[in-house]
């Protein structure tokens, strides 16, 4: 490849990088304190519906151990 072709493709690559960075630099952001309290609020609102967090009564647990049957 000629050095001119190499430069052209490096330039194309560099242009794409700059374009990508421009997009990323300009997005709207919120403070970590606000983001954190939103995450906490979501956890709090959904905690009671989280079986792995709260546990479930044995009668409702689809994966409870199968009890062996006794043959009378």
């Amino acid at each position: 490849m000629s050095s001119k072709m190499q430069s052209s493709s490096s330039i194309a690559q560099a242009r794409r990088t700059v374009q990508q960075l421009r997009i990323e630099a300009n997005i709207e952001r919120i403070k970590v304190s606000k983001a954190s309290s939103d995450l906490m609020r979501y956890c709090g609102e959904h905690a009671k519906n989280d079986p792995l967090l709260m546990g479930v009564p044995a009668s409702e647990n689809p994966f409870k151990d199968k009890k062996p049957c006794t043959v009378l």
Partner: protein
Amino acid sequence: MRPKYMRSPLIPEMATQEVQLNETLAHLKTESETLKSKLEEERAKLHDVELHQVAEKVEGLGQFVMKTRRTLKGHGNKVLCMDWCKDKRRIVSSSQDGKVIVWDAFTTNKEHAVTMPCTWVMACAYAPSGCAVACGGLDNKCSVYPLSLDKNENLAAKKKSVAMHTNYLSACSFTNSDMQILTSSGDGTCALWDVESGQLLQSFHGHAADVLCLDLAPSETGNTFVSGGCDKKANVWDMRSGQCIQSFETHESDINSVRYYPSGDAFASGSDDATCRLYDLRADREVAIYSKESIIFGVSSVDFSLSGRLLFGGYNDYTINVWDVLKGTRVSILFGHENRVSTLRVSPDGTAFCTGSWDHTLRVRAICSLI
């Protein structure tokens, strides 16, 4: 005598053009560096507190006892991937032995088995309808198999080849319907395909190395997905435009797994650097690291419990670590597998989670029932 194209340009104008190209390149590189600094500056301005500090006022979690409720045996080699059916009881798993098996996790019965033409089936996924599964790996393809109610029917006969990459398939996922599949590949790209026609609908370029994992945003959040790769980056993509909208590079090694937080506002990642991390999309930064000095083996897969309070991580040291997402502390460590945990998913109704391992088995675990 050097070949013509290697000799210095005889015409002065050509020499000037070369210099101009080099100047443009240098100029672009400088702008690139300036933008990177600006990005860091903007992110830092909003970094007013740590998540675990805000979470100090949250009640701590008690002791967790999670037991293995079912062990699924049948694969002849390492289990590489698994996925739950929306019916919360069926599971599809794929293995290095080239087999894809559909299980009823309640009864542990095998309902279907397909033998793929390749070994190392690294990816598998259940269709939202429950009527088909997708899988692929070293064959560089993603194929869809409709599941027949007739146990005697040869599933391989109805196989549909959907995706074609130029390197291994690392992950696949149906979108909101059975009609589209998203794939990631060792060829460094992700792609969106139409299942019926096999047509490429959109491709996603931006990773500098193999893409290892992907996860779709919860449907309420809109058309985005996140991918992680060997370039240590996690990228968030707009599915319609193919544009990378956010990129995060804080891991120190390959990112093996990415999973959205249930609200869609954040995602977790697991890496060969032995850490899991949480990235908030609206703050545009990493907001938590889940790590311990004693944990030195890579994380292969991560998933959240239904409320997002717990993060489960499957590790290469055969264990599962359970993290308090808000406080950043580990709440439990689970044993049982006899080799690497390679895949981990919480069931759709959040009552259990399943892990697959290089020990050839899958284990379904649920919390100990309250009396």
